């Protein structure tokens, strides 16, 4: 990023290549394709516009996803669908295991079916849990980095991730978790 700030366009291209997929999917899992494209472009425009202000006190990854998180929250606020912060008591995980997407008796032996079900379950997670799950799995961020990007504490990020995984674990068809 510092190289791009100094005028090296190739450096930007490498950065973009590395982060484009993860960032795009981060938005895609939380909106539809056209909104994801808009938000994705907006975030990169923000990176380009404020590259001189970038200071390597945080990793580029954290900075990028902080912009992405803020842009998404801003989008929800404008659309009037602001996510409600969930109370994250220790008991919440147990209550949240009831999953609508569980196919019940249907057997999911096909890997494709498992993948499809998992994506549906991720989309159906509560907003804060989905955010945390995606920052972990798409951005590859540590709990501390997730906490920084979402302006929360590391313990909260850890709880959210735990609840998200618990919900997915309980809802996904057992066949998907068995075998190699």
């Amino acid at each position, binding site marked *: 990023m510092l190289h*791009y700030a100094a*005028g090296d*366009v190739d450096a*930007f*291209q490498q950065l*973009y290549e590395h982060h*484009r*997929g993860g960032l*795009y*999917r981060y938005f*895609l899992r939380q909106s539809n394709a*056209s*909104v994801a*494209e*808009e938000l*994705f*472009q*907006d975030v*990169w*425009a*923000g990176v*380009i*516009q*404020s*590259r*001189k*202000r970038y200071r390597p006190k945080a990793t580029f990854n954290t900075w990028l996803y902080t912009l992405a998180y*803020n*842009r998404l929250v*801003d989008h929800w*606020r*404008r659309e009037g669908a602001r996510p409600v912060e969930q109370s994250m008591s220790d008991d919440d995980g147990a209550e949240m295991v009831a999953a609508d997407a569980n196919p019940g008796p249907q057997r999911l032996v096909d*890997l494709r079916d*498992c*993948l*499809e079900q*998992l*994506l549906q379950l*991720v989309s159906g997670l509560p907003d804060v849990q989905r955010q945390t799950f995606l920052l972990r*799995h*798409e951005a590859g961020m540590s709990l501390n980095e997730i906490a920084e990007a979402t302006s929360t504490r590391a313990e909260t990020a850890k709880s959210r991730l735990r609840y998200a*995984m*618990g919900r*997915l*674990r309980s809802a*996904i068809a057992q066949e*998907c*978790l068995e075998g190699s």
Partner: protein
Amino acid sequence: MSEAHDSKISDLYQTSSQETPPAHVDRAVLSMARKSVRRRRAYSPFGNHWVAGGAMVGVVVLSVLLILAVPPQPDTYVPLDDAPAPLSDLLSEELREHKNRKALMSEMDVKKDEMREETAAPKPRFDFYTVLPEMEVVIPEEEIQIQLQQAPAAKEFARAAPILLEDKIYLQTGSFREQTHADVLKVKLVELGFKCEIHKISIDDANVYHRVRVGPFTDYAVLDKSRQKLRELGYETQVVKQRE
């Protein structure tokens, strides 16, 4: 056991998560990045000196060449031994010039009337403007700060000494596929007292975006003030230049 299942879920998710942005989005972002760097280079002091120096040398060389190339005008050379023209010839010459002047003036009046008619013709009004994507440039934050810092007095006394903009500069507050979404934001901004336009942009003739933009602005101080006000109201903006 749950750790093993978590690991399995993570692996499964990584396998399923392969989507990438469409090619036109990639092109738009990379084009934006390139344009932004080109603009910044144009503003570097080193580059400016070379450009300014080169332009001045060019002007001097062109001037010298023009002076050498243009032959002396025939009416500037008056031989001393030429006899003065008779008075009748001078009078008829004066009369001819008067007639020519009159004819020229009446011709000019006709042209003025035509121009008046053209300007009086009603201009079409549009709800939004269709613009080409390559005609828009995102202006980096540092460039705006440079413009504002170059004349601090003008910032304080914007009314007395505005830093005038040569191009159309807008504050982009949103970009939507659906025009109705753009219309909703426009209405909100207009209600808040901002002058607002919707620019329709087509990328690759297939993807149409409706950019909601506040402006145009004619001076940086006003632009900066509006940007701060929008930020206070919760609208993050991008400063965009629209080339003619």
